[in-house]
C-alpha cells in the first residue's frame, strides 16, 4: 500500500471516522478546516490541521484548488473526500489525479458513468437490471413527459439528472401538477446542480429502500450485504439497519446485480447500489449508485466486521481486494439512528448552537460515531448530522432492546435533537416487527408522533 499520508477534505463525524481508520493503518493525517471548525474534534485529533477558508462551504470545503494546494504543500499521498462536498465530483477526482495525488474513491470515469442518474439507468438496463418504468433518456420537453406519463401512470417522480441522495426529486400526482411543476423543477435543478435536465420515473409508494454495500478494486467486486433504509423523512434517511428483512432469494439477487453493475463500471473503493423493492408486486428496481462512503456504512461494518474506510484506503493505495465473497459473512443485526440537530417539535427545524452537556452510552455492541464533545459549537453552515448511534446484537429483537436502552442513556443538552424521535420509533409496533416502507415515517409523524 503506497499511502502514508492522507488529507481529509471533509468535516464533522466522517472526518473523525476517516482519521480513526488512518490511525489504525499507521497513516498520517492532514485535516483541512474552515473558520467555523477551528475547534472541531477532527482538527484536534489529526496529525496536522490546515485552515482553508471562511465558514461557507463554497469558500472552504468546496474550493477544489485550495484543497489540492494544501495537499501538495503538505506532501500527502492521497485525498479522502468523505461524503457530500467534493466526494462525487468527477472533475475534482480528475484534478486530484492530475496533481499527482490519489483520490480515495472510484475513478472519475466510474463516477461519471454511475453518478449521472440517466446514464446510470442506461448502463444498468444494458446489463439486464430492472429500473422503474420511466424515461430512457433526458426529457426533451414537457410534452415528452406528458406522453411518458400515459405509460407510467400517476403518481410519478420528476428527478434531476444531476441530483442524488434524495435531492432534486418531486412527486407528481396528476397531469395538472406535471404541467405546472415541470418548468419549476427544471429551474430548480439548474440552480441546485448546474444542470436542468430531468427524467421521469413511476413512483412506488409501498416500497422498501434496500441498498447493497460494495467494495471493488477496479477488476473485481464483493458485496458486504444489504441495508434497509426505508425509514425516511423528505427522502432523507433517518434509521438504517442491516441485514434487511427481505427474503434470502431477493437479497441474493440484489447483491449479485449490485456486483454486476459495479464491475461493469470498473468500480474501485466503497460504493452503494440502491434499489426499491415493491412489497406489493415483489419487484425490485434500480434506484441509483452512490460512489462514496455513505453515512450509514457502520451497520454493514458491524455485521461483517470489516472496516470499510480502511479497505477504501488500502485498495486506492494499490492493494487488491483483500476478500473473496466466501470470506464475508453476515453476523447478527445492526441498527443506526441518525442524531440530527433538528427540533422534532418544530417540523424538524435545524437548530445550531452549543452542546452544553453530553453523555454517550457505552457497552457491548454499542458504537457512537460523532464529532461532539461538551462545549462544542454546532455551526449553522453545514448539515445537521451530529452523530450516529449504532447498536449490534445477535438478533434483531435483542438489537432493538439494546438500542432502546442506549437511546435512553444518550443525553445531549443545549440544542434540540432527533433523539426523542428515535426513542418513540424504537417502541413502535410496526418498527418492532419491521413492517414499514419508504412512506411509513411521514405518515407516522402525522398520525402517531406527539409533537
Amino acid at each position: 500500500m503506497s499511502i502514508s499520508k492522507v488529507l481529509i477534505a471533509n468535516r464533522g463525524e466522517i472526518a473523525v471516522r476517516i482519521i480513526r481508520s488512518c490511525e489504525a493503518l499507521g497513516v498520517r493525517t492532514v485535516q483541512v478546516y474552515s473558520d467555523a471548525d477551528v475547534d472541531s474534534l477532527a482538527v484536534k485529533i489529526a496529525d496536522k490541521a490546515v485552515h482553508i477558508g471562511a465558514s461557507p462551504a463554497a469558500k472552504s470545503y468546496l474550493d477544489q484548488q485550495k484543497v489540492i494546494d494544501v495537499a501538495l504543500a503538505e506532501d500527502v499521498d492521497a485525498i479522502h473526500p468523505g461524503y457530500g462536498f467534493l466526494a462525487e465530483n468527477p472533475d475534482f477526482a480528475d484534478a486530484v489525479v492530475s496533481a499527482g495525488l490519489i483520490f480515495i474513491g472510484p475513478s472519475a470515469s466510474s463516477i461519471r458513468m454511475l453518478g449521472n442518474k440517466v446514464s446510470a439507468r442506461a448502463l444498468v438496463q444494458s446489463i439486464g437490471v430492472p429500473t422503474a418504468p420511466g424515461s430512457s433518456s433526458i426529457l426533451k420537453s414537457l410534452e415528452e413527459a406528458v406522453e411518458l406519463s400515459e405509460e407510467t401512470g400517476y403518481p410519478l417522480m420528476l428527478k434531476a439528472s444531476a441530483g442524488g441522495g434524495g435531492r432534486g426529486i418531486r412527486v407528481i400526482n396528476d397531469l395538472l401538477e406535471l404541467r405546472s411543476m415541470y418548468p419549476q423543477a427544471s429551474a430548480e435543478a439548474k440552480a441546485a446542480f448546474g444542470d436542468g435536465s430531468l427524467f421521469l420515473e413511476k413512483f412506488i409508494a409501498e416500497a422498501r429502500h434496500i441498498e447493497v454495500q460494495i467494495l471493488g478494486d477496479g477488476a473485481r467486486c464483493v458485496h458486504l450485504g444489504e441495508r434497509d433504509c426505508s425509514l425516511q423523512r423528505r427522502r432523507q434517511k433517518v434509521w438504517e439497519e442491516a441485514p434487511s428483512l427481505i427474503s434470502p432469494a431477493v437479497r441474493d439477487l440484489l447483491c449479485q446485480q449490485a456486483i454486476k453493475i459495479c464491475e461493469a463500471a470498473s468500480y474501485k473503493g466503497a460504493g452503494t447500489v440502491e434499489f426499491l423493492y415493491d412489497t406489493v408486486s415483489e419487484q425490485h428496481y434500480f434506484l441509483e449508485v452512490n460512489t462514496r462512503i455513505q453515512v450509514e456504512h457502520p451497520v454493514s461494518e458491524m455485521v461483517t466486521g470489516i472496516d470499510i474506510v480502511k479497505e477504501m484506503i488500502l485498495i486506492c493505495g494499490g492493494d487488491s481486494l483483500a476478500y473473496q465473497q466466501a470470506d464475508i459473512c453476515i453476523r447478527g443485526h445492526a441498527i443506526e439512528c441518525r442524531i440530527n440537530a433538528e427540533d422534532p417539535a418544530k417540523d424538524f427545524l435545524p437548530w445550531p448552537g452549543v452542546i452544553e452537556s453530553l453523555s454517550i452510552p457505552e457497552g457491548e455492541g454499542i458504537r457512537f460515531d460523532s464529532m461532539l464533545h461538551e462545549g462544542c459549537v454546532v455551526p449553522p453552515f453545514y448539515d445537521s448530522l451530529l452523530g450516529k448511534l449504532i447498536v449490534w446484537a445477535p438478533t434483531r429483537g435483542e438489537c432493538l432492546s439494546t438500542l432502546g436502552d442506549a437511546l435512553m442513556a444518550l443525553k445531549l443538552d443545549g440544542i434540540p435533537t432527533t433523539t426523542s424521535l428515535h426513542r418513540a420509533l424504537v417502541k413502535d409496533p410496526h418498527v418492532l416487527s419491521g413492517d414499514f416502507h419508504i412512506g411509513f415515517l411521514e405518515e407516522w409523524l402525522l398520525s402517531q408522533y406527539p409533537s
Partner: protein
Amino acid sequence: MSKEQILSPLPGIFYRRASPESEEFKLQGDSVCVGDVIGLAEVMKSFHEIKSQVAGYSITFLVEDGDAIMPGQVLAELDG
C-alpha cells in the same frame, strides 16, 4: 416616530435574495406589510423564509447579505 423591529426567528445565515441572481426581497426604504418576506435564513443546508410580523414604512436592514444571525436578533427596523 415609533420604530418597529423585525426579529430573526432562527439562527443561520441571512440572505436578502432568493438566489444570487434574484432581486432583493426588499430594498432599503421599501414599505413592508405583515407577512411580507424580507429575507431567507439558511440553517444547516435548509432555507426558511423570514416573514415580517409587523407593518411599516421605510425598512432599514441592520444586517448584511450573508451575515450569521441569531434568534431574536434585530434584522431590520421599520418606521411605524
